């Protein structure tokens, strides 16, 4: 086992699969010679050549559209979109084509494209470098939506995603690239070295898609979350001193409903947390499903802690980010409820 941060884990997943399968190719802006603005593909072009690690023109629709054609013809493309905020020019190709190809050809055609893209705030990126648009992908039938919260999962889920014959949109919470982050920007940064999920096998392994992970078992409250908020939720629960069960959804769609429902039926309380804007966010689906299945176990309304319903404000990153205070507040309210 090696110590890896999330960037290294992602690079390692790519390396392992490019080595194993000559059909795996990478394309995206700045991914080749430079190795990506977050260095996730650093060294891969040198190792696998410029025809397999491709510096693409600035055209997200073009990158995804071309990847679709590659995928139909035997390649297994991994497209990098430099920031999730820039995935929208490729949205039509994702929804109208990538997600629908298998369905509209009775299973004859499909394109196993994986789209990797860094999401989330906390790096002073303002509204064009901080978004978390996972909800709009989770709503599209025919694609898988995945978001790891640590290096171990990042590598295992990315390998599963690339090997999956389904298209996958793979969100990487960029604030977690270099270390777990509990929501407090004033604390010195911690690295993944001391975190158990920073232990990552060097070789091939997978983490299955469709399974949520119980990060910590608990009896009093279930916190259902994913991405950066996994770490914030842990810190908040610790701070309150409540015995929370914390679930990392990881595979947002298709969703592992059972793990969530079993937990909430046990604890009787549920808080859903994510960084994206609350209104119409993915949390709505989680709440709707859980209240349906756990109605008679619930002792309090399911709460949601999320980004405010505004664009990500450049100057007020930490007032926007759903940090520890907001989680603590929500947990306290929920524990007080009847």
């Amino acid at each position, binding site marked *: 086992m090696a110590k890896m941060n999330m960037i290294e884990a992602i690079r390692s997943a790519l390396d392992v699969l490019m080595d194993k399968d000559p059909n795996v190719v990478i394309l995206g802006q700045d991914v080749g010679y430079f190795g990506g603005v977050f260095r996730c593909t650093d060294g891969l072009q040198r190792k696998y050549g410029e025809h397999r690690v491709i510096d693409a023109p600035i055209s997200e*629709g*073009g990158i995804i559209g071309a990847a679709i054609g590659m995928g139909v013809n035997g390649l297994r493309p991994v497209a990098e979109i430099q920031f999730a905020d820039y995935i929208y020019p490729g949205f*039509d190709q994702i929804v109208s084509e990538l997600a629908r190809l298998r369905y509209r050809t*009775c*299973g004859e055609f499909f394109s196993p494209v994986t789209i990797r893209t860094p999401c989330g705030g906390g790096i002073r990126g303002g509204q064009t470098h901080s978004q978390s648009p996972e909800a709009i992908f989770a709503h599209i039938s*025919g694609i898988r939506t995945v978001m790891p919260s640590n290096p171990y999962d990042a590598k295992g889920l990315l390998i599963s995603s690339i090997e999956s014959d389904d298209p996958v949109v793979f969100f990487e919470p960029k604030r977690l690239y270099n270390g777990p982050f509990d929501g407090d920007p004033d604390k010195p940064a911690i690295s993944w070295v001391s975190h158990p999920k920073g232990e990552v096998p060097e070789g091939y392994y997978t983490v299955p898609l469709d399974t949520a992970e119980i990060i910590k078992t608990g009896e009093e409250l279930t916190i259902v979350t994913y991405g950066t908020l996994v770490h914030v939720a842990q810190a908040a629960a610790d701070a309150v001193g409540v015995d929370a069960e914390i679930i990392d959804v990881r595979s947002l769609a298709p969703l592992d409903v059972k793990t969530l429902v079993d937990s909430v039926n046990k604890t009787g309380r549920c808080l859903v947390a994510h960084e994206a804007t609350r209104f119409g966010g993915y949390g709505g689906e989680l709440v709707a499903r859980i209240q349906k299945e756990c109605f008679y176990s619930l002792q309090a309304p399911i709460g949601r802690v999320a980004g405010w319903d505004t664009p990500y404000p450049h100057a007020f990153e930490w007032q926007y980010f759903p940090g520890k205070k907001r989680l603590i507040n929500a947990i306290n309210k929920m524990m007080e409820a009847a």
Partner: protein
Amino acid sequence: MTIVARFEIHYSRFLDAEGKAVGALPAFARDPGELVAMYRGMVLTRRFDAKAVALQRTGRLGTFAVSLGQEAAVIGLAAAMREGDVLVPSYRESGAMLWRGVTLEELLLYWGGDERGSDFAGPRDDFPVAVPVGTQALHAVGAAYAFKLRGEARAVVAVFGDGATSKGDVYEALNFAGVWQAPVVFVAVNNQWAISTFQGFAGGERRPFAARGLGLGIPGIRVDGNDLLAIYSTTLWAAARARRGGGPTLIELVTYRGGAHSTSDDPTKYRPKDEWASFPLGDPIERLKQHLIALGHWSEDQHEKLEEELKVEVLAAWKEAQQYGTMTEEPFLDPATMFDDVFAETPSDLESQRRYMLEIEGS
């Protein structure tokens, strides 16, 4: 000021509007076997088209995209392809798909709303019909990239309309193909109309659509799109060039949409009622027929017989397609299948939805 770049667009035509040669003809134009086969393809296309329109009128097919008047375009480009090449059509290339080996039954299934029609038994690498305008041009480039990466000498032929040339996707496809020198032949079928809008609204009156790739280093050629000989020979050349590693080409076929945009459309609202009847650029079938007759390879009698033969063939295909079930007649398709093929394996949540649907619909 110095000139740092020059470009030009050529125009290709072999037969005039009456089917008479306007100059020296290429060798193949004297080979009766090849020409008659293509002629047959064009007549079949028109037959199929007429049948599909009739079937739609009685509710047996969904909305259908008519290709009347574009028979030379679709057959010429398809006939110039080799088996290992890949066709990436839009929705108006029935004839090209048929030529490539998609069956009449499959096309009828597809237009009847049965996705099994896109599961081709024949040309398994050809792409299915694309309805969103322009997206498929990029898929063509990706496919071509895959061939180039693997060192396979295969060309991809991507087809889209004059209207589609306005989509960013088509430009991005040209750009990617130029940068990657991918083996793609882009075919812009300029049938003058995009639903109700004349090609001018896409910028076509200012410059030939063939010129859209010039700034990207992609040679463009404008072709008489109702002259089978010109279409076939230009596509032959461009596809061979692509297979050889010579890079992409953009071919514009100037033709005329003889029918409505689709069976949901009423073109009398925006163009003269009988415009199609006069085939403004000549009837492509008639033009080739006159050429064949002049060469002594064909006759009106043979034409009548061919029409009869193809009528029977199309009808037989429709009978066959009906075996699969249609929108209005038994055996009805099984709605339980509607949960298949969303993912490679159907997730449990979708399986529950399937069960629930069957329970409800059964009740």
